């Protein structure tokens, strides 16, 4: 790891998958010493208004506003590695989830994303375990369908064949994510292996339902994506993390959360993670 090395990473994720919350928690964490962390803010540089705003919101137990297409921006942080005292500049584009949905639906990159991707040495792919489309076959869902019809919840916009037309935004999330990664690996400038950290966000919510690991969750819930990654290890060097940037539900868990130091409510789990509150371990893995 050196100052001259490129530390530019793309943040990839469909809408509402936790990208901005991750950035907000990270910007807070690297500035405070309430938990140990491998990377610390060395100095502020340029305009930090966006990062400051979202981290202030995060610190006050409020939902971080989602990035809209009109508010997309590139953010950078000048950090110092605690153990080696080396300076590291990290740069991420804070793009909206709609931009990534548009890649799948409209089949294009923005020119700025393309240019950013060319210089990136890795990426972070965000997945929400609370909000994703799974393919459900009619044969396995007959009782549910009958309920929908009886409750009048069935959509009226059916075509002549009595069906709702195919809507790409409703395609299985795992298929959409595979396509986003295929787009990256298909560019002529792509240089494998591309280091990819997968972040299963709201990890505290997953653990409330069942004891699992991030890798197991991915294999169970998104087997198509898991197969793609396993089959293409020479293209993508990946590691799967469970991350809770909020630490819990701001409505239900706020009493418990406010008893902790701010950074203690950050939770990260994954292969190789030593400190469960240190989000920068993910970044260190990306830069190793």
């Amino acid at each position, binding site marked *: 790891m050196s100052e001259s090395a490129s530390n530019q990473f793309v943040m990839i994720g469909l809408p509402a998958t936790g990208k901005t919350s991750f950035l907000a928690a990270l910007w807070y964490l690297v500035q405070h010493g309430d938990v140990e962390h491998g990377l610390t803010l060395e100095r502020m540089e340029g*305009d930090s208004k966006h990062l400051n705003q979202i981290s202030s919101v995060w610190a006050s137990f409020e939902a971080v506003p989602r990035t809209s297409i009109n508010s997309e921006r590139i*953010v950078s942080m000048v950090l110092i590695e605690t153990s080696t005292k080396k300076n590291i500049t990290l740069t991420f584009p804070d793009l909206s989830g709609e931009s990534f949905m548009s890649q799948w639906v409209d089949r294009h990159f923005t*020119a700025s994303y393309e240019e950013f991707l060319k*210089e990136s040495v890795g990426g972070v792919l965000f997945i929400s375990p609370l909000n994703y489309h799974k393919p459900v076959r009619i044969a396995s869902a007959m009782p549910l369908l009958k309920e929908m019809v009886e409750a009048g919840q069935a959509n009226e916009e059916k075509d002549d064949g*009595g069906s*709702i037309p195919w809507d790409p935004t409703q395609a299985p999330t795992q298929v959409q994510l595979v396509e986003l990664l295929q787009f990256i690996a298909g*560019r002529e400038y792509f240089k494998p292996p591309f280091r990819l950290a997968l972040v299963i966000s709201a990890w505290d919510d997953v653990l409330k339902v069942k004891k699992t690991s991030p890798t197991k969750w991915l294999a169970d819930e998104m087997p198509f994506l898991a197969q793609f990654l*396993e089959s293409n290890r020479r293209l993508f060097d990946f590691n799967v993390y469970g991350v809770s940037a909020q630490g819990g539900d701001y409505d239900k868990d706020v009493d418990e959360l406010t008893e902790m130091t701010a950074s203690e409510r950050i939770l990260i789990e994954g292969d190789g993670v030593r400190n469960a509150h240190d989000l920068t371990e993910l970044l260190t893995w990306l830069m190793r």
Partner: protein
Amino acid sequence: MTTPPQGPPTSAPVTPQPSAAAAPVTVPDVIDLPSGNELDALAAAELQGAQPVRLIVVAGPVGAGKTTLLATLHDLFQTGKIGDYAFAWSRTLPAFERRCHLSRIASERSVADTERTKIGEVRYLHTQISGPELPENLLDLLFTDVNGETFELARDSIAECQRLHFLKMADHFLLLIDCEKIIDRKKRNQVIHEAMMLLRSCLDSGMLPASCFVNVLWTKYDFAAAAANGEHASFLQKATEEFQKQFGSRVGRLSFRKVAARPADVDGLEFGYGLPELLQEWATESPRNRTMNLLPDEELGSRESEKFLQRHFHSTSDSK
């Protein structure tokens, strides 16, 4: 995995400036990405790269279950590996998804269906699999996406059959026979007769290579299984023997398999019944090693020009 040539960006880039933290991103121009639609012959031919490509011709009349077979294969991968094989890549993900749509609750149908393939040019669907004993652990599978009317024309006319250039490149030729019709005693002889005529036309026209592996698929087998009638089993056995007698020595290998892509509630028939075994055959068995040319010879010149133009003057490509 090779990455294909793609054209330059269509607009001047906006270079990120790390020192200017939180600088607004300039209003975007766009870079077109592969459409994900069905591949034409040119795009399919470009697949030949580091790993081998197998061409699976999916043949049969209208409604025999050709598209359902392919949609189910895609659906099965979404629940996990199929036997020893994992999904690795697809250049036609949206095309597969559209074919799965009418079998999913998102369509709000009460009964699963499959969108009929439209009449038109020959198109291909693509899936790359990974698994043991494959070269580089990877194998590209190309499936023809041809509507039933085209095969009905080919059955009735050698000249029409000779238009199906892709037959010459077939590694596996799947001949689909609909068991829903087999259980109808008035229709069943006609169904077998027409299937045999199609295979005969493909062979007599010189289009289907004698080395090709032909697999007769008894599709919608759940209909035959549900009938629980020994007579149907006996009929299928006699039809099998007739196929062997007429075609056993004319093709590289003739085999038979019962398939129920989306079976009704019949004991012992799970979703995708018969597909794992089929996939294994495609993955492990090929009649020959050869380069694949899916373009008619007379079209090669003009298509090469088109390819040149596409590479050098367009930023889009339907290749990964």
